[in-house]
């Protein structure tokens, strides 16, 4: 019995002795290389207190190679012997140790710093990486809550450091010379290399991008930054001969703050070089009637809500009439008034006097319904107002900000959204106009998505070669059912920005999971023992709990199975004036395409037999009338 006890005691003593020996050895090594130890301790402490990731220390160490190079060159110039050069650091260390022993700390530091700082940064980074990995795995800390507390504290420190980086004016410009769009300072990168600033390549904008965030989380800031960044990068490319940018931003919610947002967008875009920024419908208008006749007929048909069942017959009649009106010989209608005037049997009969048998038969069949159809479209166009009946074209401006009153007048906003997206699609595919690099951005598109599903929008955008960016306030706002929501979010190959939202799980799931180590420790009574197990588990790449707790202006960028948490910088263009532009060169517009071997019918040679609508009584007011009043008035005295 005593023998066994003695053996246990001896084994314990041996184990403890080995531990003490190992500890003393480590202390001795650290003491011998005291300059490196001091630098490592300082860098470790800085990373801990300032929330830096180990990568930041590694980057600093890598960036200090010129210091080592300068040291080596200076040593080589002084010694001219490789052996002496190789021993120079040892001599410096010996000298510094003596100086330290005599209390001359600054002299000792000055002698050793050039070598100790890079090596210390490297060692500090390695120690910090080990510490964070151990805490993440639950293998370190004094109590069971230590990893969670450590993580929360480091998050807060990293966020504070990110906000601090944004205070510098040059840290996060709107665009870089490398053709990327900086978004903000990185707080944490999961599954991808850490960089101080998150930069999204311009090519990501040519794809589909989704932004989800509750109201007041900084979604508008983020969108304006992305728009402006895309514009700046694309404009820089345009100066090298690529297509000019054309931004179309749809504010689908509308309301009083939409005007403020529009004004802010305009100011930021101006700073990036955009000159003509049109705010629709407040300041300018578009012409719906520039669409190709067939597309125009389809659009007008879709803009009216049609019932089901027996109403389908009337829908078919209405569609047939619209096709006849829009594709009449002589060209499509040029305005709402012209369109309405064509919904008349007499006009159609004249227009199709030389028509084919089926056309005349369709006309006779539709005759009883023409009055109803005209009434419905007169009502619709009256509600839409003059904003879609103007002389403007999309290509006239560098950027358009469309304000749709989706909250106040959903049905009108839906019809407007349909018309605008159709015009944008036409502009993207038209070969008659200057080719433009286009980005269609829809803010709160869910407000009008009942009749134009979001999936349609981006699928069309992708097929037309224009970038589409959509935003919603929640997962539910992305579509009417989970299938559609998943289709929209899962195909966002340009990336997914998730800001604070109460239900981020489906979006987090798109980032996937990652392998983590999970440690369990054996409890001895109420305290941890020194035994336990570690196993590989899967954890969220984009932690939904973290997303739920994001602060205003913080976002999680999910892209290709990685997640980057970022503090978004406020969009602020450079205060420096833009350089003078070079003289404009000729814009080469390809000739109109021939379809199926013959020219388009709306550009045909037929005589323009379409009667123009009557000029409104009184006519447009001229500038003179503003001063002199009506024609009967005199000069105001």
């Amino acid at each position, binding site marked *: 019995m005593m023998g066994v006890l003695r053996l246990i005691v001896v084994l314990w003593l041996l184990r403890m002795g080995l531990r003490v020996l190992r500890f003393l050895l480590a202390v001795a090594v650290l003491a011998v290389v005291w300059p490196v130890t001091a630098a490592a301790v300082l860098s470790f402490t800085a990373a801990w207190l300032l929330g830096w990731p180990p990568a930041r220390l590694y980057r600093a160490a890598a*960036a*200090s190679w*010129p*210091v080592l*190079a*300068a*040291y*080596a*060159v*200076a*040593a080589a110039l*002084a010694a001219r012997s490789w052996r002496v050069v190789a021993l120079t650091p040892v001599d*410096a260390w010996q000298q510094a140790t003596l100086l330290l022993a005599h209390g001359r700390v*600054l*002299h000792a530091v*000055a002698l050793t710093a*050039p*070598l100790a700082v890079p090596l210390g940064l490297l060692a500090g980074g390695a120690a910090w990486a080990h510490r964070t990995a151990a805490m993440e795995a639950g293998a370190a800390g004094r109590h069971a809550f230590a990893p969670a507390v450590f993580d929360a504290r480091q998050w807060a420190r990293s966020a504070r450091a990110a906000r601090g980086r944004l205070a*510098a*004016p*040059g840290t996060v*410009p709107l665009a*870089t010379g490398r053709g990327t769009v900086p978004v903000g300072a990185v707080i944490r990168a999961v599954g991808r290399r850490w960089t101080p600033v998150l930069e999204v390549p311009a090519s990501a904008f040519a794809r589909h991008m989704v932004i989800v965030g509750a109201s007041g989380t900084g979604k508008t800031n983020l969108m304006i930054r992305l728009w402006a960044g895309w514009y*700046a990068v694309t*404009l*820089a490319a*345009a*100066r*090298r*001969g*690529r*297509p*000019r940018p054309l931004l179309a931003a749809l504010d689908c919610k509308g309301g009083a703050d939409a005007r403020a947002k529009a004004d802010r967008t305009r100011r930021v875009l*101006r700073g990036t*070089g955009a*000159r*003509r*920024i049109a*705010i629709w419908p*407040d*300041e300018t208008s578009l012409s719906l009637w520039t669409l190709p006749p067939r597309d125009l007929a389809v659009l007008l048909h879709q803009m009216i809500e049609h019932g089901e069942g027996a109403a389908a017959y009337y829908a078919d009649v209405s569609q047939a009439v619209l096709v006849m009106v829009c594709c009449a010989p002589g060209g499509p209608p040029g305005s709402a008034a012209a369109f309405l005037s064509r919904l008349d049997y007499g006009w159609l009969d004249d227009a199709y006097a030389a028509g084919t048998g089926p056309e005349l038969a369709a006309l006779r069949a539709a005759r009883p319904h023409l009055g109803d159809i005209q009434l419905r479209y007169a009502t619709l166009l009256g509600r839409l107002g003059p904003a879609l009946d103007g002389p403007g074209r999309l290509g006239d401006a*560098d950027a358009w900000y469309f304000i749709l009153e989706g909250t106040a007048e959903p049905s009108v906003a839906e019809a407007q959204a349909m018309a605008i997206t159709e015009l944008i699609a036409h502009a993207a595919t038209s070969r008659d106009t200057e080719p433009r690099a286009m980005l269609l951005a829809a803010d709160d598109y869910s407000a009008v998505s009942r009749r134009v599903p979001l999936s349609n929008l981006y699928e069309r955008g992708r097929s037309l070669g224009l970038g589409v960016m959509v935003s919603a306030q929640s997962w539910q706002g992305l579509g009417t059912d989970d299938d559609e929501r998943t289709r929209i979010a899962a195909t966002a190959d340009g990336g997914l920005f998730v800001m604070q939202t109460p239900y981020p799980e489906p979006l987090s799931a798109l980032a996937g999971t990652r392998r983590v180590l999970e440690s369990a420790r054996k409890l001895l009574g109420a305290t941890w023992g020194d035994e336990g197990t570690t196993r590989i588990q899967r954890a969220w790449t984009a932690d939904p709990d973290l997303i739920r707790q994001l602060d205003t202006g913080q976002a999680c960028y999910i892209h290709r199975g990685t997640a980057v948490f970022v503090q978004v910088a406020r969009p602020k*263009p*450079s*205060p*420096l*004036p*833009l*350089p*003078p*532009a*070079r003289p*404009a*060169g000729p*814009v080469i517009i390809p000739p109109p395409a021939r379809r199926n071997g013959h020219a388009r019918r709306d550009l045909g040679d037929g005589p323009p037999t379409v009667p123009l609508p009557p000029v409104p009584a009184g006519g447009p007011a001229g*500038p003179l009338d*503003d*001063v002199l009043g009506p024609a009967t008035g005199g*000069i*105001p005295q």
Partner: protein
Amino acid sequence: MNPFAALGLPPRPDLTDDEVRAAWRAIAARTHPDRRDGGDPAAYVAASAAYEQLRTPWGRSEALADLDWLPAIPPPAAAPPAPAWAGAWHAAVLLPARIRHGRPLCLAARAAVAAIAGYAAVLLAGGTPSAPAAVTGCALWWLATARADLAPPPGR
């Protein structure tokens, strides 16, 4: 021609339709050719053209943009690639303005810290390879951190 000046208005983005109209009416009443004194046809024509341009918010916005950044950004002109030295020269020319519009005091403070640290290193470790290495380190630190204190280049 500056249409704001033609109407005697300040080039502000928050001008209202009424303000523009009032300015136009005042000038037109003074200069109209139908006045008994014959008016001032040239001034009237200039004011008319200016009013035509500024009567809508869109027009004012355009005029303001023209004032800010004349001439306009052109459509793409396939320009010959600029030589590398031209880019460097352009960046150097912009540097004073970028410093002025950035954080010049922070930049100066960093420069002072780097200079003092480098000078101290030379004093303390003079004659050893550590001195030039320390000076290199100080300069490197200043260069690496100075960029954040500069305003971004124009258009970014």
